[in-house]
């Protein structure tokens, strides 16, 4: 049941893992929206007006009012469209706190290290960063076992907040694996997360919006062109 098609706009770009989080949440709640894609290298007037503080995507515009920051958008979607899909945040306050804790860990600690890998020139630094990424995923593997309670997702039977927080990066994890010839999600280290990734990618709310790895690689080659050697 789609709702609010004219009322809901999402400013974003298809390669962005943060924009993907918002799209997945909208899909979970079957909310129709206009996807306003920003062009690489420029920022639209609407974006600058809607997010004057950070000038970043995603921005959700609902009834003319902007909401910024991907996980804040996800929580907003959950709190507005309460009856058109399963809950995204857990119902128990303690479980909510755990989900928020790990989402903060992913954004504040894990992602900065993960995104530094392609930028590091020195092999030693690269190896250290990759090691840190693995350590983080091991923690998330443990968190998955606790949160999922034997089900397919961090959220249990349905995709939840923490699934969305981590899952947004799935495409880029696959890109990193292909471009740097290493395993990010390794069956020998994080078997549960590997299985989770398959379930997540196949989910109805995800499969049509998760960018194809090959397309992301093409994008990465343009976006992250290394500086020319002197």
């Amino acid at each position, binding site marked *: 049941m789609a709702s609010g098609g004219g009322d809901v706009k999402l400013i974003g770009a298809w390669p962005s893992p943060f924009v993907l989080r918002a799209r997945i949440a909208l899909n979970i709640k079957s909310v129709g929206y206009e996807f306003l894609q920003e062009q690489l290298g420029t920022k639209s007037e609407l974006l600058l007006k809607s997010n004057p503080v950070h000038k970043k995507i995603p921005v959700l515009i609902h009834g003319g009012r902007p909401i910024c*920051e991907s996980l804040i958008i996800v929580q907003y979607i959950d709190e*507005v469209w309460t009856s058109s899909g399963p809950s995204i945040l857990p119902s128990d306050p303690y479980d909510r706190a755990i989900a928020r804790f790990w989402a903060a860990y992913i954004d504040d600690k894990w992602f900065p290290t993960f995104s530094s890998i392609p930028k590091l020139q020195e092999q030693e630094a690269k190896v250290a960063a990759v090691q840190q990424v693995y350590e983080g995923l091991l923690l998330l593997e443990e968190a998955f076992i606790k949160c999922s309670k034997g089900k397919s997702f961090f959220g249990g039977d349905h995709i939840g907040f923490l699934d969305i927080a981590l899952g947004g990066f799935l495409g880029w994890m696959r890109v990193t694996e292909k471009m740097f010839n290493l395993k990010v999600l390794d069956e020998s280290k994080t078997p549960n997360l590997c299985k989770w990734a398959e379930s997540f990618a196949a989910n109805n709310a995800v499969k049509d919006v998760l960018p194809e790895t090959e397309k992301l690689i093409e994008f990465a080659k343009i976006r992250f062109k290394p500086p020319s050697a002197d």
Partner: protein
Amino acid sequence: MEEVKLLGTWSSPFSYRVLWALELKGIPYQYTEEDLYNKSPFLVKCNPVHKKIPVLVHGGKPICESMVILEYLDGPWPHNPLLPSDPYERAVARFWAKFADDKGTVIWTMFRSTGEEQKEAVKGSLEMLRTIEDLALGDKKFFGGERIGMVDLAFGALAHWLGVFEEIVGIRLLEPESFPRLHKWTKNFKEEPAIKENLPDKDKMLSNFRCLREKLLASP
């Protein structure tokens, strides 16, 4: 009623965010002062990932990260809510709380640096204060409206710690003429009984942070 414990330190604004929230909601709690140079086994057990304070322990279950704790408290204790009830207002509150966390570190950088690095941090701090002044507060008494809310607590360091840092480094950032709304907010915030009665002693802070700055500048 299940027991509430707070692991914190007397000089941390993050610790105070939670302490203030507990006081504002009238939640009884047991406070433990942690020694961060000699972390207790209990702290490490409660927060194995970061080994940091504050940690709230409710009925034996630990919650870490000050903003995660603040979001948690409205659940079991809905009175005197820290967040508004309207989803859009909640999104705005969360935005500014995140801003406080992400941008607030520039003030710490100003405090612990010298030379070019400090100059950049001063510039960044002024930009941050300008954003808050122009976009976050409006004409409300508090960020939360008529009552103190989560955003006020998130910005609490500006009301008490910033003045101490300014005095130690000899740089004035929060000038009343430049930031009239924010300046008025710091006064209103510190006049609230729950806050006023729970502020670390200014002289103790000056001495402690002066010492800390010397240590930080001396180490490589």
